[in-house]
Structure formats: structure tokens, C-alpha cells
């Protein structure tokens, strides 16, 4: 009876199609989209002025969590850098070689140059290698926890090695 009521009270249930029979638990697709459901959640909770439950402030940080947010952070950073470069190309006078020579003439010193090179090389390397790890997940492989950690450490190791190589080249 409860099943009947629950099934009928769901939005968008269509009883005329045979596979939408009331006794099929959750067999029919929802009448609302995931996007609509999410919007409803946020609208309701923000209008009630509810505070957000603590999550990142209380949950123990793990390597996979840190690698995930680093992937996002490097992605945002790299995107920002590319956009900044593109806007500089449009706005600044003079060409690329002019600005390269300008930086050369500043005699910044090898350590700072190396730091800058590493600062570009590491995000590129990490995001690329972790990106491959993401694609590996996307074909459905490597989800067991030991595999997650193994591939994770591999990504970190390869990123460091590649970044150092690119910095010293």
C-alpha cells in the first residue's frame, strides 16, 4: 500500500505505459531531472537560511581527496594562466620575443628562473598525468582502494620527475 502511494505520488509517473506498472519499484524514470532536483534542494535550504553541514572542516583528509582538489586547482590555475596569456597578447604592445628579452635583461638569476619554470611545469605535468588517471577511471578500471592509492602515488612520482626534468632542461 505504501509502495503504491509512494509510486503514485512521485512526479511524472505515467501509468499508461506497461513498464511503468505501479509495482515496479523505481523502474520508471523520475519526472524531474537531476538538475531540477538539485535546484530544488538549494532553493529550499537557502531560503530557510540553513547553514551548511561541516564537511571539509571535519572529515579526515586523505591522499585521494588531496589529489582530487589539486587536479581541480591545477586545472583552474592553468586555465587562468592561458586566459591571462591570451589577454596579454591582445592588450600589451610589443611581441613575445620583446618580452622574453625584457625578462632576460632583468638578470633574475637562475634560481628564480628555475622556480618559475617549475611553477609552470608542475601544474602541467600533474594535471596531465592525473588526467590520464581520470580517463582510466572513466573506462571503469582502477576503483579498488589499493589501486586508487597505487595509481595516485604513480601520478605524484611521475609529476615530480617530469617537472624537475622540464625545469632543468
Amino acid at each position: 500500500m505504501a509502495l503504491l502511494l509512494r509510486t503514485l505520488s512521485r512526479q511524472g509517473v505515467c501509468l499508461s505505459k506497461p513498464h511503468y506498472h505501479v509495482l515496479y519499484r523505481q523502474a520508471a524514470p523520475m519526472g524531474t531531472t537531476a538538475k531540477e532536483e538539485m535546484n530544488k534542494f538549494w532553493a529550499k535550504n537557502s531560503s530557510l537560511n540553513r547553514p551548511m553541514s561541516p564537511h571539509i572542516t571535519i572529515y579526515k583528509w586523505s591522499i585521494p581527496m588531496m589529489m582530487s582538489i589539486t587536479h581541480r586547482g591545477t586545472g583552474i590555475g592553468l586555465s587562468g594562466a592561458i586566459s591571462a596569456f591570451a589577454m596579454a597578447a591582445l592588450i600589451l604592445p610589443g611581441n613575445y620575443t620583446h618580452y622574453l628579452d625584457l625578462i632576460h635583461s632583468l638578470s633574475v638569476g637562475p634560481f628564480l628562473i628555475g622556480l618559475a619554470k617549475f611553477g609552470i611545469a608542475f601544474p602541467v605535468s600533474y594535471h596531465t598525468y592525473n588526467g590520464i588517471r581520470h580517463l582510466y577511471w572513466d573506462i571503469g578500471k582502477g576503483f579498488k582502494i589499493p589501486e586508487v592509492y597505487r595509481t595516485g602515488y604513480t601520478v605524484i612520482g611521475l609529476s615530480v620527475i617530469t617537472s624537475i626534468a622540464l625545469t632543468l632542461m
Partner: protein
Amino acid sequence: MNGCDVEPTQLLIFYHHSSYCSAAALQRDLAAVCGWITHVLPCSAAGSDSKAASLHWTAERVLSIALLALGPVAYFSPGPFIDYSLAAALTLHGHWGLGQVLTDYVHGDTKVKLASAGLFVLSTVTFAGLCYFNYNDVGICNAIALLYSK
């Protein structure tokens, strides 16, 4: 390739099994797929919305793989074609990636609309700037090479 009835997943399998000797053909098809995805999809009922989302997901992965392939191609045969392909692939990958970030952190219809509009402007300006750089300056491949020639 005017594959209006070809699923991107089928294309992916096609790429996997065929030997694509030229990055040019790959890029052309990729552009066709992207164009098809963004312009030909219907948008109304919940069913086709989820179909659109699923195709978008697949397109994101196809683009990521294409971008990975562009790396060695750019290293071994730099030139204007790779420069413009990189400009397009990098900008689109960044646009879609930032789009996911927006979806995760921005809530509420007006805020989402504003943020999406801002992102669109940013991506457009980025692509324009990169193309300008490719056309009027040394180009992306040479720019990276010059960093290492000092």
C-alpha cells in the same frame, strides 16, 4: 564527416580501431562532433536532457584524449596547424572544465546564468587572444620552444 546520426561513442570506437595517420583528419572530425553536439541537440523533455548530458560527458573525454595526442604531435611537427588546433583544444577543454567547477559551486538560476555568461566571454576572449598570438606573433609551439632556447 557529417555524421548527424553517428554517436560520439561510436566515433570513439572508430578512432580506436582505425589508424588515423593525420592529426588533420582527427581534428576535423573532432570539430564536426563538437559542432554537432553543441548545435544539433534538441532540448525539452527530461529524457533528451539526460541524453545531452551524457553526450557532453563523452565529448569531454574525447577532447581530453585529443588534447593528449596533440602534445607529442606539437613536439615533433610544430607549425600553424598545430598552433590553432592547440588553441581550440586548450580553450574548449578549459571552458568545459570550468563549466563543471561552476556547476559544482554556483547555485541558483540567476547566479548560474551570470557565471555561465562570464565564462563564455572569458573563453571567447581566450580563444581570440590565442588565435591573435598564432597569427601575429610566433605561435604557441614556437613560444614554448623559445622558453628553452635561452
